[in-house]
């Protein structure tokens, strides 16, 4: 247990943490100023016999100063974070070479769909969902989907490769959250949301559902494994060898 | 009572409204105009009628600004909500 943000596991982590630290510095300074000021006033100006308060209705110059400083700071902050925001969630932020992985959320489990050899994900439609045979509603008509691999509650990722998670939900709103990646995106039924990230450190992490989604919300958890490119391909081969496309865990 | 203002011809307003309603009905039929033009015209007529009611029947035309503000303030808020909601389906 470390008393700071979780280890940095994606390319987003570093800039976001810097942002966080900057805000912490700015707010920290303000915090100290205010609280120290309060304590000082409490001692310096406590009621004593014979003292009389200084009669004033304020000072325009002071007002201007402590209006202007926050305003400027906030505008700068806004510009800083907007640049980052556009890179992460902006309309055209997903890199062209991003590796697609289908993330299908339902009460209370995750189904991850990996593209087969063709590197493309097959079409899915909610109408085709069948609890046992076809949990993610994959469309058999689409050739791109025939070699897709569906794995339950296990997300495997290649390291140092942009990945775009294509998020769809079956029933209610869930939220795809990997603390180490600093990535969070609600998964909304009826919407197909693309959220991209690039894992930088091989190892195992956890996906959590961070949007209240019902009784099993607290245990809607999946294991994340970030492999080196080679390991990832090995894993994909082994999976493909296994019964094709059958949801397994 | 402070409502001692010159009075509009209510019957005239009424005829206005009736005519505008008839015009709207006319627009409801198949016409050689695009759907958007039709929509624009219908909304224009609707707003016109609404203004007539607001200004003359509710006497906003004869009130002071401090009261008119009450009627005006909610409208931009409603529009903000509307456009924010609509923007969800066009990005």
């Amino acid at each position, binding site marked *: 247990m470390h008393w700071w943000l*979780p280890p940095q596991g994606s390319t987003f982590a570093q800039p976001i943490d810097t942002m966080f630290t900057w805000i912490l510095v700015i707010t920290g300074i303000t915090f100290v100023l205010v609280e120290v000021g309060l304590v000082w006033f409490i001692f310096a100006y406590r009621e004593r016999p014979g003292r009389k308060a200084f009669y004033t209705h*304020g000072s325009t110059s002071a007002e201007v100063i402590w209006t202007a400083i926050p305003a400027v700071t906030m505008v700068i902050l806004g510009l800083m974070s907007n640049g980052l925001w556009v890179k992460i969630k902006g309309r055209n932020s997903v890199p062209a070479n991003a590796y697609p992985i289908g993330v299908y959320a339902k009460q209370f489990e995750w189904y991850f769909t990996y593209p087969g050899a063709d590197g493309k994900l097959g079409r899915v439609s909610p109408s085709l969902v069948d609890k046992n045979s076809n949990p993610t509603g994959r469309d058999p008509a689409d050739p791109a989907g025939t070699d897709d691999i569906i794995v339950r509650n296990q997300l495997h990722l290649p390291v140092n490769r942009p990945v775009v998670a294509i998020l769809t939900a079956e029933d209610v709103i869930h*939220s795809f959250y990997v603390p180490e990646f600093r990535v969070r*995106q609600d998964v909304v039924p009826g919407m197909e949301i693309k959220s991209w990230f690039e894992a930088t450190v091989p190892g195992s992490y956890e996906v959590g559902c*961070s949007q209240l989604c019902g009784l099993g*919300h607290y245990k809607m*958890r999946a294991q994340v494994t970030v492999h080196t490119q080679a390991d990832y391909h090995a894993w994909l081969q082994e999976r493909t060898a296994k019964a094709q496309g059958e949801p397994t865990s | 009572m402070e409502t001692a203002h010159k009075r509009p011809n209510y019957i005239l307003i009424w005829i206005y409204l009736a005519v505008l309603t008839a015009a709207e009905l006319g627009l409801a039929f198949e016409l050689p105009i695009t759907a958007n033009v039709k929509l624009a015209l219908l909304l224009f007529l609707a707003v016109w009628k609404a203004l007539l009611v607001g200004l003359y029947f509710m006497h906003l035309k004869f009130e002071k600004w401090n009261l008119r503000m009450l009627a005006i*303030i909610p409208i931009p808020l409603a529009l903000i909500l509307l456009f924010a909601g609509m923007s969800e389906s066009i990005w």
Partner: protein
Amino acid sequence: MTTVAATAHATHAHHDDRSFIQKYIFSTDHKVIGIQFLFLTLFFLAIGGLLAMQIRWQLAYPGKPMPGGTLLPETMAPGGVLLPEYYLQLVTMHGTFMVFFAIMLLLVGVYANFLIPLKIGAHDMAFPRINMASFWSAFASGAVMLASLFVQDGSSRAGWTMYAPLSARHDYSGADFGQEMWSISIILFGLSSILGSLNYITTVINNRCAGMTWFRMPLSVWALFITAILGLLAVPVLAGAAIMLLFEQILGTHFFDPAAGGQPILWQHLFWFFGHPEVYILILPAMGIVSELVANGSRKPIFGYHSMVFAIAGIAFLGWIVWGHHMFVSGMNPTLGSSFMVSTLLIAVPSAIKVFNWMGTMWRGNLRFHVPMLHGIAFIAMFTIGGLSGIFMAATPVDMFIHDTYFIVAHLHYVLFGGSLFAIFGGIVFWFPKMFGRMMNEGWGKVHFWLTFIFYNGCFFPMHIIGMAGHMRRLYDPTVYDFLKPWQPMNEFISINAFLLYGSQIIFFVNFWWSLFKGKKASENPWEDNGLEWSCPSPAPHGNWETLPTVYRGPYEFSAPGASKDYLPQNLKLPTDRDPVLTPAAGH
């Protein structure tokens, strides 16, 4: 037309020949209604806290039988161990009770009702009967919400934000009629607060006494007035949304049902379009109250009265264009996200102005540390933390990481407990004499304050830290996640502080009830304050004044050079003061 003020003056003068029922139950007297609200909301505050204690137990000791848990029915906690379904009810109802029935009603129910006519020099509200209707619909609404806990399958389980489709379909949430009851209760609540708001607004606009110009109104009245405008325009949207939610269940409509083309996001837009003004409804009146307490405690005029007023107005205005910052990761249009971020960051400016002005008020003052002042200072200190931590989630990329974690929980509790609730406690102690004619016990008041202050920070500050570690909200059992297991001791620490925090409130309740009957009799103006309310006897009689006071100056003339004492009541006529040029009151 005759204004209520005039009729009140005619009928309420001298002897008061109303029956007990008219006086204390179906009363139209704004003070009685305010006190009725006080008892109602303190009750809900206690309930909400009790629910929170159970949440904290489960988080600290997941799966362990809760002390006294065996008293709960099998459907909630068999053998004292909380069930997930009950846990979600706790989470939902804690939020609902605290936001709507405790904090909001304490501020706009208790203080608006009790203070507005007393502080602007009116005999009563503009519409006393509507005022009564507002209280009783709030009462009914609260009763329905409370009852929903005990129906088949318990109350709603979708969190107080009721995100559809989880809230829209019973088979998703597992709740039954309790879900409908939430909507019904909220619709009643909306009715209540709309009636209340239009009453407050009319009263402040039309029923001010002679000389009470706009910029001589106490900041508390300004805050309550602007809050009323927010409530008036925001709450109907919630009512509309609640109606749609109700129809999803009873009429099978499809507003939020993606399968039929509905939009789950639509609920979030409607809810937060209400919800963000609501956030300011929950803090602005507290800011107003604190301005009174701090000015009185510092024996000094409020620093920058006008900019304080404009800051309140600015916060209220910005409050309408920031709601999207609750939805940054909801799949909302990212461009919308950027604009919402900017407007959200801007809110820091008026908030900063207020904090610095309060400090400016204390600067070179002559501070009296009576209990209300202590709460006022605590408000400034704690609201600063809450406000600053808001900047983290305003910055969209950072929000992507801390959204829906305990960082948010910490933030909102620093604002709503550390902010609003401290102001509320301080206000209760401050106006207790005017309400009941007796003082609350000073010593025990201070004990309560310090215990609350310490355990409150012990409870909520660590939440920032586990939030930074990624601890999600509304988890029934955090130990499911490996990365949260190490934080269990911290969860325990938080919970222990929470229990002690709740325990120390008992001191307040005992002090409250004891002082009600045994407290020392209060003089007319025990705090040596300038407000008009202190110019009528304690407790304030029915109709407040026989002849309405006249105001000669602003409300914060402490330590004025010309004055003999270090305070100068608004209605005290100095030889140098000339009488106001009386214009006929509106509508006479």
